[in-house]
């Protein structure tokens, strides 16, 4: 009798705990076509090239100013602490320059341009093997000044489903041979950014 009551109480607790944890959150799933995305794995792009990513980080936020830094080396960051229907990829100029330097905005996280104030919105670094050649690339993508903004509002497809990001097309259009390195805002950085935002399904 007592055991049954305890069990009921425990399941109630469990329910509240689970409910409490899952409320106001949304998970992210990152894929490359049909395969799950992982750092240091090879993916076939454009039918012939093989791409491998060593570092992949980006900011995602909501219209209330909450932000998360998603880092592929830390799957805990795949759980967003908000579940808004409209999400922001990149940052507006106010968030970018407000001088909040803690939490996800801590310059320690390697996403801050100290000498030309602003946050890097997307950092991606890796290698591409093509026809026997190995080319490395390194992109620091950001910018909040007109015309080279990196800011986009995306609408989440369904209320309860996780947010799916498919990088297949994004990988296939990276300018790895023409521009293997970008460290500044500009037209190519902006193009890379918009190609990235089109990965959000």
């Amino acid at each position: 009798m007592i055991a049954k009551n305890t069990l009921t109480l425990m399941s109630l607790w469990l329910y509240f705990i689970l409910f409490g944890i899952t409320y106001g959150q949304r998970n992210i799933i990152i894929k490359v076509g049909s395969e799950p995305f992982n750092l240091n794995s090879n993916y076939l792009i454009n039918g012939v090239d093989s791409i491998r990513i060593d570092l992949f980080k980006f900011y995602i936020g909501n219209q209330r100013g909450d932000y998360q830094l998603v880092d592929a080396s830390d799957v805990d960051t795949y759980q967003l602490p908000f579940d808004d229907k409209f999400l922001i990829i990149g940052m507006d100029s106010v968030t970018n320059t407000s001088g909040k330097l803690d939490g996800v905005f801590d310059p320690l996280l390697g996403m801050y341009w100290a000498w030309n104030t602003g946050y890097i919105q997307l950092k991606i670094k890796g290698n591409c093997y093509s026809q026997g050649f190995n080319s490395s690339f390194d992109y620091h993508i950001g910018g909040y000044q007109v015309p080279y903004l990196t800011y986009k509002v995306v609408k989440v497809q369904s209320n309860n489903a996780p947010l799916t990001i498919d990088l297949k097309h994004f990988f296939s259009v990276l300018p790895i041979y023409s521009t293997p390195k970008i460290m500044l805002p500009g037209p190519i950085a902006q193009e890379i950014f918009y190609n990235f935002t089109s990965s959000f399904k």
Partner: protein
Amino acid sequence: MLIGIPLISLMFVPIDGLFYRPEKWPKPIYNFRDNPLTFEGYTLGRTLFYDPILSKDSTISCSSCHLQFTAFAHVDHPTSHGINSRAGKRNAPGLMNLAWYPNFHWDGGVLSLNGQAINPLTHPDEMGETLEGVLVKLNRNEAYKSEFKKVFGTERITTSHLLKALAQFTVSLVSANSKYDSVMRKESSFNEQEQRGYSLFLKHCNQCHTAPLFTNFEFKANGIGPNALINDSGRRVITGKASDAYLFRIPTLRNIEYSFPYMHDGRITKLKDVIHHYANSSNWVYPISKELKLKNNSLSPEDQKDLIKFLKTLTDKEFLFNPSFGYRLK
């Protein structure tokens, strides 16, 4: 009555060195709500400013290149120097009245005073440290831990605590008590030569070096031409615009007598040579901003002397020798 006079003078210059807004000055831009000033925070910032713990090999502090007696500029060094005697590209500017700056550095690339300190801390030619490295050192230091806890209420020192503490000190470096200021407050008067210099200043200089801050914070080319030995295109590095090539911040003229050497690369040592440069358009090298081009009228040698006499009235001895801004014994 007798008690009233010292009380009034205390209102203008707080003896503890904390930030104040001088009478008739514009509203400061610094966000004090985000970093409320306290005496403890200011004192902690002051300790950090003078502590070489912030550099990679504990040899260089902020004060190595920003000395109080030269208005926190770097006397006799054309460009700043860092760990292992490495030289930077630009002249370490004087630090004063920073609460009114819309952005920082000779190129204006830094948009908040809080974020500014990351640059000298992490630049390989300056303090050469990483933020991680500084925080590890500070979090190991019991004295710092307890001081930070007093100011920010937390056990662990973070990036923003470090930067906000430093900013509480640097934002408090207000220089507004030169002879010029006392003349403006009608507490004293210029002599004849200073008065002539002041008239020349208003006619020729005030457009860019606008009172009371003696800069309008814009970026201009003053005709000294690019430095042949240092590749530095100034404002263009930040904006990417070709039209911004070789533009640098208009610096303040406050305490100019002491903040030599002059120009963004410290290439001119004597104030009279700076004035001579502006007074002789035949010396100017492209690019030249339109404000200067339009002037194009030379100053006689007498005018130049008068102008220098006026510029020396911008020296604020109380600021340069205020013990509250100096090294703090721990």
